[in-house]
Each structure stands twice: as C-alpha cells, then as structure tokens.
C-alpha cells in the first residue's frame, strides 16, 4: 500500500499533505491488527497509516482523506498526519506525545466506567523527548491504567539520532521505575512481535496495569514524503542495508516458507488481492468529490445541545448588588 501511494504521490500532485510512510516498520501495526478489538482505543503519532490499518479502519477512506476528498475519513480536513476514524476508535495527530496523553485519558475513562477495552498509544522514540510523555507514564503507573504504550524505536527523530537526544537508547528501562512494566525486542521479527504484543495486550486487558513495549525497528524511506532525504547524511549506508536485509515482511515470508505454511501461489494470490484492493481505493478516492462548503462555524462548534436541553431549566437572573467587597485573598 505504501509503495503504491509513493508511486502515485507526485505524478498528479493530488495528494497534497505531508505523509510519513511506514515502510520497514510493518510488524508492529500488523501484529496489533490481530490483537485489538473494536472496544479498544488506538492513538497514533504522525506516522499513522499502519495504525489506522491496525484498528480496522476502512482503507478507502484513508486514500480519500489523503486526496483531500469529502469522502475521506475526516472529510479531507485532516490529511495523513492527523487522520482519525471515530467509528473505529482510531485517532492520530501530528504533535508529538500529545496523542499519548490523550490515550492515558481514554484508559482512565475506560477504567473509571469499568468498560471493556484498553487504550493503546503508538509512537516513536522521539516522542519520549517530550515531558508530556513522562506525565502520561507517571500517571499510568500511579493509577494502574489499562494502557499499552508501543514505542517503535527507529533510532531517529527526523534526522536526529536518539543518542544525541537521550543518554541511552533504552526507553523500556526508563519507564519501569514509574510502575510501567516494560519489554524491549527486535521489532522486525513479526512472530516475536506478535507474541510479545499479545502477552502485553492480554496483561493490560486483564487489569494488570500499564505496559510499554519497545520495538527496535527502522524506517526505509525518508522521514516524510517519498523523496530521498539521504543528503542529510544522518544514517550510514550499512545501517540501512542491515535493516533492509531484515525486512519484517521478507523475514516472515522466509519463516513461513520454511515451515511450509505458505507457497508461492498463495503469496501471488494475496499480492494480487491486495493490488486489487489498492486499485479500488485509488479509484474511490479519485472519483470522490472535494469538500465544497466552507461552513466554518459549524465545522468548529456543535449547533445542538441535546443533553443540556434535557437536563437544564431556563431561568432569568434577578438584580445583582454590585456594592459588595471583593473576596479578601489573604494570605494566598
């Protein structure tokens, strides 16, 4: 899907929004897609596509959103980095760590209402530079919130090496003394990722408190957009080569082939099904209308107040006597 989007990105200049591709980082979202239930909430950082998919949100609405169409998941208002799909309980956003804090609130809401479901936050190691992230970790630990933090540690925030920004590359170790159980792992071994996340999801689901899983992985592409950002010389070629050799999809395929669980025919069939689906998504997006009405006010405010209408009376205030002294603050 990401490759297909990239191929189409520039030619027509129709996808006009920053896109952070997640090629090379497929394992974590793919594993989550098998583990999350409709009642769970998933909150994503700017690199949204994998997580969007993981929560089972409709693919054609993702394509339409990127194309800025009225049929997009957000009616073309949000784009790739801010996409959400309310019905699927999936919410993304581009400001680092912001969505992690919101995820903590959703976890609290579920816990408070004794509702089924857990809250999951997916983000990169860069977000852990932000103080806001540590407020969420601290609170999750103190309140034993049903939240799973998933860090895809790809070593870079844009072009900045983690070790320029943090003293160690081990976030899992740092959250543990806050009361957040944690585990780190090689994030490109899909079965291992699935197993680890499965245990983590179950642990959080069973009320054992918050967990953090740190998956070491790598992004193949530029930080944003399809153009090569290699001129920034921020990562060595052998590092890129190492991770490309350890592509999560190839590794999985090798393993499955060894086990004789799939054969080439099946793979080709899957590939052509996927290609078909993607083609259908492109067609849907391109055939969809653009949003046309400005409607600025009603886009930003609700027009109705049904709950207030049901619960509150109408009253007129009587005269107010203004010659009263102000509250004395002393001494604070």
């Amino acid at each position: 899907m990401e490759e297909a989007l990239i191929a189409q990105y520039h030619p027509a200049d129709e996808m006009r929004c920053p896109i952070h591709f997640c090629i090379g980082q497929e394992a974590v979202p793919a594993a989550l897609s098998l583990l999350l239930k409709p009642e769970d909430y998933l909150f994503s950082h700017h690199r949204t596509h994998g997580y969007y998919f993981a929560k089972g949100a409709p693919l054609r609405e993702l394509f339409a959103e990127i194309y800025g169409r009225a049929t997009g998941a957000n009616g073309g208002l949000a784009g790739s980095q801010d996409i959400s799909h309310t019905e699927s309980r999936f919410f993304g956003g581009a400001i680092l760590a912001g969505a992690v804090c919101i995820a903590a609130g959703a976890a609290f809401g579920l816990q408070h209402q004794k509702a089924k479901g857990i809250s999951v936050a997916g983000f990169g190691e860069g977000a852990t530079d932000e103080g806001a992230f540590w407020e969420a970790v601290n609170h999750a630990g103190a309140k034993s919130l049903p939240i799973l933090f998933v860090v895809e540690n790809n070593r870079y925030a844009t072009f900045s090496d983690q070790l320029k920004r943090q003293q160690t590359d081990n976030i899992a170790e740092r959250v543990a003394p806050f009361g957040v159980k944690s585990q780190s792992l090689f994030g490109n071994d899909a079965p291992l990722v699935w197993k680890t996340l499965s245990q983590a999801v179950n642990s959080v689901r069973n009320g054992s408190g918050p967990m953090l899983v740190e998956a070491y992985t790598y992004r193949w592409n530029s930080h944003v957009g399809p153009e090569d950002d290699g001129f920034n010389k921020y990562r060595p070629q052998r590092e890129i080569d190492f991770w490309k050799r350890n592509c999560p999809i190839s590794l999985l395929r090798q393993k499955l082939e060894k086990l004789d669980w799939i054969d080439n025919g099946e793979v080709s069939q899957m590939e052509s099904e996927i290609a078909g689906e993607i083609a259908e998504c492109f067609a849907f997006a391109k055939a969809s209308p653009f949003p046309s009405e400005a409607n600025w006010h009603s886009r930003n405010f609700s027009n109705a107040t049904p709950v207030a209408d049901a619960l509150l009376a109408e009253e007129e205030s009587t005269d107010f006597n203004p010659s009263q002294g102000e509250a004395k603050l002393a001494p604070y």
Partner: protein
Amino acid sequence: MNRSISYAEAIREATDQALGLSDQVIVLGQLVDTPSGIFGTTTGLAEKHGADRVQDYPVSENLMTAAALGAALTGLRPVVCHQRLDFMIYSMDAITNWLALWRFKSNGKSGVPVTIRAIVGKGWGQGPQHSKSLHAWFAHLPGLRVAMPATAFDAKGLLLESIFGEDPTIIIEGRGLFSMKEEVPEKPYRVRFGKALIRRVGRDATLVALGSMVPPAMRAAEILAQEGISVEVIDPRTISPLDRPAILESVSKTGHLVVAEPGWQSFGAAAEIIAAVAENPASGLKSPPVRVNFPDSHTPMSMALEKLYYPGEQEIAEAVRGTLKKS
C-alpha cells in the same frame, strides 16, 4: 424566593448538581478532594460523590487537559479545575493543538465536552505568576467557548451549560468575585453562551464590562447616575461566542462606548469589542470608544503598585465622562 449564595457556593452547587444529574460528570484537579476544595468550590464533593469522581490530580497540567479529552472520548464529561490560570499555561498544547480542533479535525464526528475552570488571582501580592488572565487568547481559538461569569447566578448557569453542552469550554473565574452573593435558583438551570445581559439600562453611553470588571462598572454607573449621566451596562457573560448584536444595538442607541476588561490592554478582548463596533456601519458612534484595562505590564506584588495597576469604578467613571466630553 431564591436564596442568596456566593459565587463560590454557586459553583459548588452547580458541580454538585452536575455530578448528581449524570454519572458521566467527573471533576479533576489538584486538591479538588480536600476540605479547602479550590476556595470552597469543591468542598465535600469527593465525600458525597466519591474520590474517583472528584479526583485529585498530579501536578501535570498538560496531561490533565489531554486526559480529560481522552476521557471525554469514552463518554465522560470532565470538569478540570485550576487554582490559577497561570498553572494551566502548561496545558496550552493540549488546549490549542488538540481540544480546540478536535471537532473540526474529526469532521464533526467526535465532540469533546471538556470544561476547564481557570481562576484568576488578584491582589494580596499574587505577583506576576499568579494573576494573569488570558481570556483573549482563548477567545481567539476556533472551537473553544469562553465564559467570564461575573455573578453567582451566571457562574452556576454557565458552568452547568458548559458541562452539559457539546463543545470544550474555558470558564474564567475572577478570584475577587468568590465572596459576592446573589439570589440563585436552587434547581439546575442554564445560561446560554453568546447571550449578553443588560445589567443596567441607560441612555447616554454604553459600558461593556467583562468578568470581574462588572461590579466596578455597575458602581461606576451608579456614581455617574448621581451626576445625571445614564449609563447602559452590558455584560457579555461569554466572549466566545460574543454577543456582538447586543453590544451594537446598545451603542447605536447611546452613540458612546467604553469597555472595561480585567486584563492587559493591547491585543485584548476590549480591542475586539471596539473593532466589532467600529467596523459596523450601523453603530453610529458619536465619539471614539475608550478602553479601561490593566496596563500592558506584568502584575506587581507590592500593594503600593497593585493600587496603581488595577483600575476600579473611579477609572471607569472617568472614562465614561471623557468619552461624553469628546463627542
């Protein structure tokens, strides 16, 4: 006959009733669960409704707002309390990049009814980190409602309207108002956003007063009445939405406008009110409008300078006299 209760008691009563009316309502804030209870506005509520519903919060203001948003997604209607608006500045990201734009960004599919109570300190040496009112900032943000209740009646009605409304709201509460009493109905009632109140009908000049400037504005009107000047006092009650038509109607009657605002002058709310009137061809302004604000300076601690810093009824009355003379 309604009982007369204070502004602080009215807030407490509204919160108590909201907690009673719906399980969705929760209260979050530092020390909301203690007997002192945010200057008496939450006292006893944790005992009555449970410490999980009236919940002490860590000193993590950004998280508090963002978490309220997340909780709202799961169906709750959180009320977030800040003892000082200054502390809440840590949560500007949650307010600006998330809360205010959530409905917009979701294409109208998801609303987050979060109420934020922000108390503005005044006097007794609060100093520059305990006295800022940034209501104009919040009113500048699309997607946020901003209320500035001046009386116990409005404090209760606007808080209930906010809690049970569908949009995020910031309520600016002037600390000096907390002791002021007024007749307040017992039942839970609403005061709608965007509906100004004419607190005193007048002929000669329109005096728009916001929040904690309302009582001194009313006293100024009383002083001026003694001098034969009839002032119409308008209390917009909320500044987002702002009831521009009500202000315009009054000005088109009186021809003169003074705005009294409890905050810095430049780029403040008074500027918006004056601009809204000036740009309207029907306003019929007969003299240049005048602003009564705090000076463009941080708040001094010393009481000697506090006296020079905060304007009161005399300054307002003088401004009205000035605008009438100039016409």
